[in-house]
């Protein structure tokens, strides 16, 4: 469904060049959840933002359903691809209620039956009616992330791009959001890409996982292999070992 080939991203500024993404290629099948892990600066978020059209490509193609999409997105193609960001504090407008945050997306894309859709989206993400006219600061971190997910889902996208959706949350809240995402992708047969630094989170939600370092995909492995520590590259093995916790010997 999603086909990325030889993606390159170069940031230029004040005479310096930063090659953030180098020759990244992968495919995601319909209904699959594909994971990208890596440490800070590995380029994992840049890949996701490029797919979403937020960052200019410097080379390579992004194809959805066999159709290459251009840098300038049509309204329809942006509706089909929705993104959820890491920080629910930063991604919701502080002076808009949940209702108007959700309604804005509907207005932009010219949807009808807006009230009905808003009520459904609120119910879908496990919020209740009393949250409809609240402002983001009146919600907890987990509730805010639910609003961000509702805002993405209200446009009935086929692709969901998740950038560290639970890193800012406590373990108990993270569990609720991960369960919600697992449940929603099933009921709406969503294809998604999840970017995270947390191997346990990625292994929990994804079937195949790409490991990135210095802008490149080091290797792609299955969740089962990741759990067992069966990896080709030294870097992946080091990452898995480090994620298992502290070990005195080494």
């Amino acid at each position, binding site marked *: 469904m999603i086909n990325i080939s030889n993606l390159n991203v170069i940031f230029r500024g004040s005479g310096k060049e930063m090659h953030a993404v180098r020759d990244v290629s992968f495919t995601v099948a319909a209904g699959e959840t594909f994971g990208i892990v890596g440490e800070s600066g590995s380029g994992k978020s840049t890949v996701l933002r490029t797919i979403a059209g937020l960052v200019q490509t410097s080379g390579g193609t992004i194809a959805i359903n066999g159709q290459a999409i251009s840098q300038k997105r049509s309204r329809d193609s942006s509706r089909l691809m929705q993104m959820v960001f890491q920080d629910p504090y930063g991604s919701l407008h502080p002076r808009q209620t949940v209702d108007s945050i959700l309604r804005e997306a509907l207005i932009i894309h010219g949807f009808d039956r807006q009230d009905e859709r808003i009520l459904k989206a609120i119910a879908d993400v496990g919020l209740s009616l009393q949250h409809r006219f609240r402002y983001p600061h009146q919600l907890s971190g987990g509730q805010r992330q639910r609003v961000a997910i509702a805002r993405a889902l209200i446009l009935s996208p086929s692709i969901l791009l998740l950038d560290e959706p639970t890193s800012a949350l406590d373990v108990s809240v993270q569990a609720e959001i991960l*369960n919600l995402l697992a449940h929603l992708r099933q009921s709406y047969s969503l294809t998604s890409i999840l970017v995270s630094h947390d191997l346990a989170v990625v292994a929990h939600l994804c079937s195949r996982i790409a490991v990135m370092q210095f802008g490149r995909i080091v290797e792609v492995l299955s969740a089962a292999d990741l759990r067992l520590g069966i990896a080709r590259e030294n870097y992946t093995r*080091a990452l898995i070992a480090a994620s298992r*916790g502290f070990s005195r010997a080494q």
Partner: protein
Amino acid sequence: MSETLLDVQDLNVAFPSRAGITQAVRHVSFTLGRERLGVVGESGSGKSTMGRALLGLTPKPGIVTARKMSFDGQDLLACSEADWQRLRGRRMSMVMQDPKYSLNPVVRIGHQIDETSRLHLGANAAEAQRRTLAMLEAVQIRDPDRVYNLYPHELSGGMGQRAMIAMMLVAEPDILIADEPTSALDVTVQNDVLRILDDLVRERGMGLIFISHNLTIVSSFCDRILVMYGGKIVEECKATELHHAKHPYTRALIAAAPSLAEAREELATVMRDPAWLT
């Protein structure tokens, strides 16, 4: 391990406000020897507030009360501000989560660390610099002479955190309180920083209070663990026995975390019982 460095009995921290009194820490009692003591809990559990109270750093209008709070025989409850200044930095230190906010951005790394030795140990400039360079080397900074002259913005996160640890340890304190010292770091760097702390506990016999939200790290790194919920210690156990934890909150926390070791269909969510707070 045998000798007790810190003895805390019935510690309470309260913040009065117009809306009433918020009890951030309730009836906390524990002792610390020359060991690694982990404190885990979620946001708002009072773990950081407790760490600050131990160093007399509770911000106003917070009220700290305790039946007993003593460090190496000295009564901390009776400490004046001058007494605290002799203790803090010299015998008890704290490492915060993010080096970006804890280092002075306009002073060279080396000079910031020198200040500790000059202030607390009365070292002269040359002696302070010698100690700083030795300490930077001890926290495994490869090129101490170069790093000595850098400004904080020129360091990566991992290097900044090592510099922070060097600064806290240059006076060779007996107790180090580390508040989420590795949470802002990448996993591979995390373990390097933990190894440095581990060596210091073993080689210098320091007592370490390691505050974290990460159960994996705490259970693999510490000797003993306190689990906090709503300002209270709900469970105390050996780190190796965390997986046999008895309290429902601890068990729920373990079950809620996705695990790399085993696949789980659905994560358990944490049900909270108001009775845990009484």
